[in-house]
């Protein structure tokens, strides 16, 4: 894991430049200026937008304000999905900064979970960690940790403290030397084009013959349509090149 520290840091410190604009139908006492912010890919919208909320609430009357929610081109953004995932799913092919619209009324009950406090985000985050460890270690590692270790994971994420987070997370990323990997790989595949929220299946890190599975093996197994499209595109690229050169 220490060899990968550069990669771990790059993942942790990934940012998306974002422009927040107040929805035009919100009632304000003065003009609301847009608010610019670099959003951490690994965090959650409702965890990192206190400043955004304060900025817009300054120009609104108290009675016009209820729970904040975010939308991109008409699609309510699920705060319980990591920010990087939301961006990749909805806006990866568009120019930066990412333009998000801020709402304080008409909360879309059917599309979004409520987020009344930071405790809700913490509970969701810890549930994800626990579900992942159920797959990796039959929950043994997470259950053997003390409450203060769980708290440290959360505080590390909340306060953007890489070292604090990984001091605990590295234990969740280890496996006994006699095994060659986790019991199952915790993964979810999100696609913008499908009905189902995501693909999540049991997948072992080692094949029956003993060789390590690759990402390609995983995709072929649980999402073969993703592979086929890439192969087709590559084929037409190669064909086009050949036609130009002949």
């Amino acid at each position, binding site marked *: 894991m220490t060899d990968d520290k550069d990669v771990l840091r790059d993942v942790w410190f990934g940012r998306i430049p974002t422009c927040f604009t107040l929805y035009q139908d919100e009632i304000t006492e003065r003009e609301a200026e847009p608010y610019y912010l670099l959003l951490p890919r690994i965090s959650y919208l409702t965890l990192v937008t206190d400043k955004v909320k304060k900025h817009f609430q300054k120009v609104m009357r108290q009675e016009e304000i209820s729970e904040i929610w975010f939308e991109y081109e008409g699609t309510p953004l699920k705060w319980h999905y990591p920010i990087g995932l939301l961006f990749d799913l909805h806006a990866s092919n568009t120019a930066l900064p990412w333009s998000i619209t801020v709402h304080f009324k008409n909360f879309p009950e059917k599309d979004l979970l409520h987020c009344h406090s930071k405790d809700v985000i913490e509970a969701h985050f810890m549930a994800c960690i626990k579900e992942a460890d*159920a*797959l990796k270690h039959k*929950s043994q590692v997470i259950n053997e940790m003390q409450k203060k270790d769980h708290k440290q994971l959360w505080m590390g994420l909340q306060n953007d403290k890489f070292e604090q987070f990984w001091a605990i997370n590295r234990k969740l990323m280890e496996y006994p030397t006699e095994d060659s990997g986790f019991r199952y790989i915790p993964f979810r595949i999100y696609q913008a084009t499908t009905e*189902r*929220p995501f693909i999540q299946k049991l997948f072992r890190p080692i094949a029956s013959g003993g060789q390590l599975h690759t990402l390609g093996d995983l995709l072929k197994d649980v999402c073969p349509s993703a592979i086929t499209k890439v192969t087709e595109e590559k084929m037409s690229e190669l064909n086009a090149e050949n036609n130009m050169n002949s």
Partner: protein
Amino acid sequence: MKTKKWAVERTRTIQGLVDFIKKFLKLMASEQLFIYVNQSFAPSPDQEVGTLYEVTFILNILSKYA
């Protein structure tokens, strides 16, 4: 709850389960119902039951309500 085993469609969400159990147990909307999987984690309300089943083999739902 007398019946401990229920057949549920794969695409039903956890929130759907919560709503059903609350109605069945005649709980008030304000009362809280918590669902845990194999006593180890609480799934997100929008997760589908089918997905949880595939990764946990046995979906053992322990519900506690205040």
